[in-house]
């Protein structure tokens, strides 16, 4: 596992998500304000749509797919509503100074 810088703290407004790529793989970084940052696979497990374009629910710590409305738990990656039935991958996040780092598998 390697910690990789993915963006700056200021790149993602509170209550929103933004998409960044590492080695051409897209990640959605979500800013939950006092609860910190979360990072998940940017692509919905159900159909090929970007989750960062969906709505973030800060209190519930979920993000909603903009296409079909499945919501995903930002801590476990598990879908909370249909039509998605499979989880998206979640990645441990660390904030160091102004940098948001995520832990990704080597290779």
């Amino acid at each position, binding site marked *: 596992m390697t910690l990789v810088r993915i963006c700056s703290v200021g790149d993602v407004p509170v209550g929103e998500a933004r998409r960044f790529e590492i080695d051409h793989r897209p990640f959605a970084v979500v800013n939950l304000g006092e609860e910190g940052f979360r990072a998940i696979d940017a692509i919905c497990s*159900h*159909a090929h749509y970007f989750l960062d374009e969906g709505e973030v629910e800060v209190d519930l710590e979920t993000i909603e797919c903009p296409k*079909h*409305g499945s*919501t995903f*738990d930002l801590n476990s990656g*598990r*879908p*909370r*509503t*249909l*039509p*998605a*039935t*499979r989880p998206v991958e979640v990645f441990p996040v660390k904030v160091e100074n102004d940098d948001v780092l995520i832990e990704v598998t080597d290779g």
Partner: protein
Amino acid sequence: MTAATTTTGFEERALAALPATTPFVRGLRERAFREFRALPIPSQETEEWRYTDLEELDLGLRPFAEGGRAETLDGVPEDILAAAGKVGERAGLQIQRNSEVLITHADPAIAERGVWFGDLDRAIAERPDLVESHLHTLVPTGRSKFTALHGAFRTGGTFLHVPKDVQVELPLQTLTWVDADRAAVFPHTLIVAEAGAELTFIDRHVSPGLSHALSDAVVEIVIGPNARVRYVALQDHGSGVTHLSVTRARIGRDAQLKSVGVAFGASLARAEVEAVLAEDGGASELLGVYFGDGDQHIDHRSIQDHVGSRTSSDLLYKGAMRDRSNAIYTGTVIIEPGAHRCDAYQTNRNILLSETARAHSVPNLEILTNDPTRCGHAASVGPVSEDELFYLMSRGIPEPEAERLIVRGFFAEVLDRIDLPEVREGIEAAIEAELARDATAADR
């Protein structure tokens, strides 16, 4: 969420203990219950049940097994979500667990176009105008002891209504998951496609291995003039489950039904599929794939009933049997009096992968008119071709791999006609899994 015992056996008090419903369904339940008590267990002395013995079927089962209701997927176990299979884009998805609908999702965009998709019990309560005129009209409760049992004790199920000229591009799907041991569940799918409507529906029946359970399913498909319906039934129950299903479609003028029936699971599986080409110009394509192992008994029965003129039907069922498994296919093409210039064909082919596997194929034609364009059938049962095996082995392919290649090729004829990629890929993966399984380990 754990399934709990409520009552045991199909008695009057069990009927009274079912969840409350409308007066229409109460009347239907009471009538069906009387029919259930009056009708005998289907006998092997009748032609319809000649090859399948239900005399010993243990009916000491719970007629209602709780499945729970969920607002979110938080309480839905992983194995149920995994059983939904590879779920691509869907216009709607419903999960029924045992006797209850657990959760439903319908794309708001289809609801805006007037499509109704969801729990059949909810539909009966909310839209009796759409349901009551169709429920149990194609498959009457009095058809057999098991359709009567279904009519008496059904809860849950799926209702799909697509209004006139509305095309639903994405498939809709219901997963019926049975994990209550010694329970009977009664999945019911009622599909109504009004004139010019188009839809694709996937009915998935899955369970883990159980000591004993009964899945007694009914599917009714009403297809209006010029409508197009694609219906896929995927059955992958675990060992110990008896799955009995009756699917009957009424195809209107110039309408079309394309159906795919897949049977991989259950200890005993019987699927009756009937396409009634009720009006002129209708067409049906019935495809089937089955793979048996262990002591599985898989019985398919089809009817292609041509009532209207210039109607066409084509059936292709293919199965592979291994170990001590047993397959039966009985199909009848009927060209009714007054149905002119009809085109009908049925083909059933079986490949036997062990010396102890068995398959019976009984195609029938009942041509009651004198001018069919074409009407025919073909059937075969046999082991893997020695010549084909020799050919592949002479080119350096080991025998087990050569046999797998031949089986893949055998199924390709039917799989190539399935125009839903994710369904085709799912069946291909299931066939690969069956082929990869050590034959000696299979003990259904």
